């Protein structure tokens, strides 16, 4: 049991309580089981003991969802100019640089096309490691272009949400990304192309109040925090403690906001079945029903 003692100290690091990047062992925050990092990876970062879903990076997510773990990537070179010259204590530019260093991305999403069980799809996968997955002008443009790509190629769109909401440091421009993406999704909707929102932990704020809630289907991972206002803001407003499980996937399912809560290990299959259902009739457009003939009353 000597490995256990060695593993213990890094596990207790406060900055990363549930993940030890340099270590081989991870303690599950839900069941306290000590997990072997390699096993966890193989198990799509789901605890083999209690099914706790650890957070995935945007690239891990794409690798898990797409056939052969392969995809074509788009719009990787878009980056924020810091349009507000936002000077907080840690200037926004430094945060952008730190996010880029941590993730290898220029902003908080990867845009891809690939196949799920042979079906061609456009997928945007959000990266929590880049400033909390926050939605700024680049994320807005990346998703809008993905919607337009889906429209042009007539393929389904999936967005895997993982975000604390709009990016404060881009001010009202980040707020407007909600409108921009939603307008693009209106066109996708009218073109009768499938859009599936996958909601993972966390999906909050302006992301929830736009593309996360505009899917033909809303599929969430178990136990994900999903909501508009953050729990702390709500507690401050109503001056009472929130009930256990509030704003978790299961709570939203119960209140009619989700179609399903799906274990990550079954997500790919569920997506494939969903897309098949929604694309089967695409070859034959639905005709407008003929006007009813007036019938004599009686």
């Amino acid at each position, binding site marked *: 049991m000597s490995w256990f003692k060695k593993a213990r100290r890094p596990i207790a690091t406060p900055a990363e309580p549930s993940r030890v990047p340099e270590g081989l062992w991870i303690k599950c925050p839900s069941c306290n089981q000590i997990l072997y990092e390699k096993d966890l990876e193989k198990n799509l970062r789901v605890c083999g003991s209690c099914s706790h879903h650890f957070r995935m990076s945007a690239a891990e997510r794409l690798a898990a969802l797409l056939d052969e773990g392969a995809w074509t990537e788009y719009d990787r070179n878009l980056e924020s100019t810091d349009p507000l010259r936002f000077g907080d204590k840690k200037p926004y530019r430094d945060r952008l640089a730190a996010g880029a260093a941590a993730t290898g991305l220029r902003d908080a999403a990867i845009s891809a096309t690939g196949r799920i069980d042979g079906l061609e799809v456009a997928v945007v996968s959000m990266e929590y490691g880049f400033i909390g997955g926050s939605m700024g002008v680049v994320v807005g443009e990346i998703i809008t272009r993905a919607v337009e790509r889906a429209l042009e190629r007539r393929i389904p769109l999936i967005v895997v949400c993982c975000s604390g909401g709009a990016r*404060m440091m881009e001010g009202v421009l980040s707020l407007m990304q909600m409108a921009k993406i939603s307008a693009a999704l209106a066109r996708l909707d009218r073109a009768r192309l499938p859009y599936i929102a996958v909601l993972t932990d966390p999906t909050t704020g302006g992301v929830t109040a736009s593309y996360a809630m505009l899917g033909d289907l809303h599929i969430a991972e178990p136990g994900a925090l999903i909501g508009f206002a953050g729990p702390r803001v709500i507690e401050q*407003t109503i001056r009472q403690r*929130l009930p256990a499980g509030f704003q978790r996937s299961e709570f939203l399912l119960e209140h009619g906001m989700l179609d399903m809560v799906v274990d990550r290990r079954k997500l790919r299959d569920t997506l494939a079945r969903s897309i098949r259902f929604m694309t089967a009739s695409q070859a034959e457009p639905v005709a407008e029903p003929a006007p009813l003939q007036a019938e004599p009353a009686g």
Partner: protein
Amino acid sequence: MPDLLEFEEPIGVLQREIEALRMLPRTKERQAEIERLDKRVDEVRREIYGNLTPWQHVLIARHADRPHALDYVGRLFEDFEEIHGDRRFGDDPAIVTGFARFGATPVMVVGHQKGRGTKEKIRRNFGYARPEGYRKALRAMKLAEKFDRAVVVFVDTPAAYPGIDSEERGVAEAIAVNLREMAMLAVPVIVIVTGEGGSGGALGIAIGDRVLIQQYAIYSVIPPEGCAAILWRDAARKAEAADALKIRPDDLVALHVVDDVIPEPPGGAHTDAAAAAALLAPALRKALDEVAALAPAARRDLRYQKFRQMGNIGIQEAPATSREQSAP
């Protein structure tokens, strides 16, 4: 007379002097002095309002005496008939909807309503709308679309209501659906931000062919207090946050988020609602006429392009690194 804000205290000093003089028996000299002081009040007000800090601007946008949607409805429109309810759950008094005439033009009016006086403020939840408010708004707008009527929206809210019931009934979904559906409305939509354009709660009824903002209103992704609390763990640094967030009309025009700024009377709309309405009327008329002249499909395309470009001002294309160039 509206309550003075702290930074307006020099006006208060003069006003108290005037009051004191008015209490005394009237003489020619006193009358001249009162007139001189009245002029001085105007000068001081112009000076203060000409040099507002962003935080002072926020305080004016939130002023309790700022005209609300129904104040403008009463001054700008005729034959207003309020309509109620979302046909799903209830009627949210934080958003009012109804039809009216603007001159000869029939319009559907949608607006946040903060309420004035304690009882009314509570009834209207201080302008914090719940999901049923957003759903009522969309129902009203679809009604307008069905009968080919323009929509006029007044935006003035701190935020969508952050409460348990609001979350349970899907406030995020309600706002999201409004964003999508307003983008597709076939009729003219004119949005006027009259006070606080508070985040998603404002945006949820603010998709239009024209987005106008009054001179002392704001539009922000987060309240400055919230921004300061998150960034610096210190809500007291709200003034810095108000500056950093670029939430004033001139900033918003520069960022291509709003189309035009509607002037207010010298001391702000809260000092003279009638004058504020008189300044608003021609701006609304011009916007409505311009937008109504377009064919519905062209109008919808332009509205799409308008929101499609938002934020692009803050994006650049980095040169691809060699590693990326060699990737498939």
